[in-house]
């Protein structure tokens, strides 16, 4: 479906179309999205803390991410890449950017679909979380080693609740394909999975939290703790490596938020059953722009909510994160799976 879109622009070759879409998503969605999220995090954090935040570079500090990029790109530490570090960074890049092709950003750009398509981003992100966090494990410092150990522990415990929530979703949609997911959620806000079934609403929370734990992101970023580990897995990252690493982590967060919106909050579907209007716009680029805009807006709201919770609350310890995930999230996700099944049976009966 996606590559057919580019016939509008006179591009017939499916491989060229696919490549152009992936490159377009990377440079026009992912990188700006990651930069925007990072900037919003700093500005929102400053606002919550009664500070101003970045305000010197550009209008209200909007060019601060670019200034940081320029500053960091001029720095390179004295230590060269260890061979292990290079391997794991390459692996992280490979797994993370493999996701670009499997997560659609518009109804006209669904590049890949299958009955298990929704599982693929989860598995790829799990591999990414292992690869990224083993970067710390491969560093020859206590900080990096502890950060890596914590990160791996989080990845292991976060997988079960995330996968169970996904299974609960599959009970609603029938399978784990993009086509079914989009079809199920295209009839207004109460057709979105989080609102059509109260237990799927709970599943959305579990899925989001489990993902943040798995990826070691705020508020569960104990593997990169500044207070006790001097940055943990980030402690040996500086200059150009730090840019790349921040981009990877930012993209991981963006991707997980986009997946949550897709799975539970309707994706690019508008709340008032206006999907038909968007489909009938008559212009594919305009329709794609609306889809990306709606998806982006929902993802931004969810991301800002996560930032808000992370900024306001203290940070839990690593063992408290794994205890919480294993004892509560995992158990709750299994019970929730049963509850979704019962609810569906009750509604259909």
């Amino acid at each position: 479906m996606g590559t057919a879109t580019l016939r509008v622009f006179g591009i017939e070759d499916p491989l060229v179309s696919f490549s152009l879409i992936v490159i377009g998503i990377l440079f026009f969605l992912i990188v700006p999205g990651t930069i925007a999220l990072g900037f919003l995090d700093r500005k929102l954090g400053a606002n919550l803390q009664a500070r101003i935040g970045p305000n010197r570079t550009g209008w209200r500090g909007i060019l601060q991410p670019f200034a940081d990029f320029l500053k960091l790109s001029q720095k390179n530490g004295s230590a060269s890449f260890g061979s292990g570090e290079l391997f794991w960074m390459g692996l992280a890049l490979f797994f993370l950017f493999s996701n670009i092709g499997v997560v659609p950003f518009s109804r006209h750009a669904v590049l890949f679909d299958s009955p298990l398509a929704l599982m693929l981003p989860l598995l790829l992100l799990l591999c990414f979380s292992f690869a990224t966090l083993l970067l710390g494990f491969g560093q020859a410092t206590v900080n990096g080693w502890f950060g890596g150990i914590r990160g791996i522990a989080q990845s292991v415990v976060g997988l079960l609740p995330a996968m169970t929530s996904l299974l609960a979703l599959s009970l609603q949609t029938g399978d784990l394909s993009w086509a079914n997911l989009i079809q199920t959620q295209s009839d207004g806000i109460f057709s979105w999975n989080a609102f059509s079934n109260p237990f799927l609403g709970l599943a959305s929370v579990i899925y989001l939290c489990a993902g943040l734990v798995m990826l070691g992101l705020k508020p569960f970023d104990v593997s990169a703790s500044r207070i006790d580990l001097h940055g943990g897995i980030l402690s040996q990252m500086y200059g150009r490596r730090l840019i790349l690493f921040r981009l990877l982590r930012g993209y991981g967060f963006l991707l997980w938020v986009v997946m949550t919106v897709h799975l539970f909050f309707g994706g690019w579907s508008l709340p008032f059953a206006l999907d038909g209007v968007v489909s009938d716009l008559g212009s594919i680029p305009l329709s794609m722009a609306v889809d990306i805009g709606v998806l982006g807006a929902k993802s931004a709201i969810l991301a800002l909510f996560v930032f808000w919770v992370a900024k306001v609350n203290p940070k839990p310890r690593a063992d408290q994160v794994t205890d919480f995930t294993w004892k509560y999230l995992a158990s709750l996700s299994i019970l929730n799976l049963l509850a979704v099944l019962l609810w569906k049976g009750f509604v259909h009966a």
Partner: protein
Amino acid sequence: MRADSSEYLDTDLTEWEIGPFHGSLPAPMKLRLSLDGELIVGCEIERGYLHREIEKTMERLSWDAGIAMADRVDPESSASSELAFVAAVEGLASLEISDRTAWIRTLVLEMNRVSSHLGFFSRMARSAGAETMSQYVLRDRERLLDLFELMTGSRYLYRFFRFGGLNSEVSDGVLERVLTFCRELKLRIKEYNDLFSYNRIFLKRTQGVGLLDRREAMNFGLTGPNLRSTGAGFDLRVDQPYLKYQNLDLESIVQVSGDCHARYLQRLYEVDQSLNMIRLIVDQVPLGGASFEPLAKVPKGENYAMIESPRGLVGCHVVSSGGAEPVRVAFRTGSTAALSAIPGVLVGYRIEDLSVILASFDISMAEVDR
């Protein structure tokens, strides 16, 4: 919670040296930790990174100039160390102070206590990862520091107390501003409680962590809030009142659990108590003068004065040979005893508890190393 035997991994121990500058440490010092996995099984402390030869320097300065050095024992609670020195010399020289001087000194001490404890809350919040609470507290402390600047001329190292009086007069306008600040900070305390003090994550990070029982605390010579948080209700202002504390109907506040949360709550309640005292003091400050005469020489002899500082007892022993400079000045500080208790307290807890435990003792390496 302290790890039980089942949590020890019994692996080869990792030796980890952190410091002198590290995010977990409240001030420059070195910790050599022995770790079994993430559990701390041993700790050695190396101090001295902030040694500034204060006591030796005071032997070469005049008595008046020594007040500025006494400030620097602990810059954050400089009023206490300054007053300890001034009171010791006044006792030696048999100098009387006016009623107004005594009230104003009491006021400055309590304001300094609030300022120091607000700094503690900020460090405690940051150690637990609550940056928002940390910034809120610092914002409120800024207003108090502005009041100090108005009153004494500086935000931290006041050099406000003089032998027999005060450096400058305090106007009624300043006292009104102090009262306004007290009213507003009282409301802020409620905000801190709602946001942070009983936050579930903060409770899990602090309750049962860094346990120190009463007997151990007394054996280590702890004083101040660190001691009172273990249930021992010794407060110099109550038990051996000085200045105008006997007029303020003060009661010793204690917590009993002896963990990090108890040390936090102890200081929170003490801030509330200090704010109440400040309001009473402002109502009772009499009119009058607070001037002083410069002191060139101090009669031969020695004297010791103690003050209840925000970090425990600060004592100053002064020896004079009758000349223009002291023969010896020695300070006894609350943080020194607290630091000696740290290695024992840390054993059995995790690396992540290190920053919370160190922050909860409110150790000032400036007053340890001097």
